[in-house]
């Protein structure tokens, strides 16, 4: 299948003939193989794993996924390759997430997503 990762600024990543992609869908990790059912779902913060054996990892703070006739499009506002995730960047992201959790008028979903982001970032730092 062809995988496109698109951000508002540019097409971040595009590659053909990828056997499998693992995405952090909102209802749990989801592996997408060739000829998957057409599906639209959205992502919680986490790792996108591309490939089966030789993997490429990207970290996203959330996004939308659209799969149809072996085209997988991942739309996300923010995505980072592992090299881009310096300690400074991680701190910046977690500060922002923390602020969101403290906001009074945030919806439950926002708070849940922000906490997930914080957890994921912590896991990254341990690595």
């Amino acid at each position, binding site marked *: 299948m062809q995988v*496109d990762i*698109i*951000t*508002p*600024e*540019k*097409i971040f990543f595009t590659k053909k003939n990828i056997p499998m992609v693992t995405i952090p*869908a*909102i*209802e749990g990790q989801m592996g997408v193989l060739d000829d998957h*059912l*057409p*599906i*639209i*779902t*959205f992502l919680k913060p986490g790792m996108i794993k591309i490939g089966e054996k030789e993997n490429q990892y990207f970290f996203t703070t959330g996004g*939308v996924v*659209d799969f*149809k006739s072996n085209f997988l*499009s991942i*739309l996300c*506002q923010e995505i980072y390759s592992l090299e881009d995730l310096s300690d400074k960047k991680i701190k910046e992201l977690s500060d922002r997430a923390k602020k969101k959790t403290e906001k009074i*008028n945030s919806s439950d*979903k926002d708070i849940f997503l922000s906490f997930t982001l914080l957890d994921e970032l912590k896991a990254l730092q341990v690595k």
Partner: protein
Amino acid sequence: MPSLKDLRNRITSVKSTQKITKAMKMVAAAKLRKAQENAEKGRAYSDKMKRIVNNLKKNITENTSAPKLLVGTGKGDTILCIVMTADRGLCGGFNTNIVKKSKEYFDEIINSNKKLKIITVGSKGNDQLKRIYKDYIIKKISYKNIKNISINEASELTSQVIDMYYKDEFDVCTIFYNKFKSVISQEPQAQQIIPVEGLEQNNDDEQIKEQYEFEPDETEILEYLLPQNITTQIYKAFLENAASEQGSRMSAMDNATRNAGDLIDKLTINYNRSRQAVITKELIEIISGAESL
């Protein structure tokens, strides 16, 4: 009749003006290329987003459970207008065109006894609008100090707008910006972003409809997606506006440079003519002086 020295001074001053406009044109051309590139790169995201929202919208059958952002509040009493202009002038009719377009719309709203609220983005639009619509402007935003407008600015604006929407402060939201068509033509646009509008219903899309699976259900995805969609729309407007501004400035400065060139030619002819007149006059004086001896 201006003296020779006056003419000379004017020529030099026009020449230096021409140098400035030429430089500005060059800068605008360089910036335009980048802005255009950005606008094109951003198109992939907004197109895709539009298609997904389209698909979701078609699958929603019950209007009652649908998110408010999609179907609206059911009334249209208060209208929020976001007018996007540049922070800098000297770009031809760029700012004026947007303001003109928005003024027409404002008058329509006021005449039909609806409530109007205005947010201005960019200081030039604010300057032009505050004279007449001062009482309606509830917020002014300027990105003068930010070099490259990123998605973060757009999402900040969106979250403010959505907050207001949920507080029932307005029912309909429209943005005004210049759509970039080409370097010489930009079109002022009014686009309604809340409730979501302008999703075309093509017959080709009908076939896609039933094939999709949604996880979780459509309504929940839409709730998550619609604010993002609005951010995308606003961001797209930012990008289009940035490209239009540079394009507009480029052609304005090109015109100015050419006008300055014309003016210099005219002044030079005048200068030479009066120089010759002076010489002729002196000759006549000498000759008639010699004759009278």
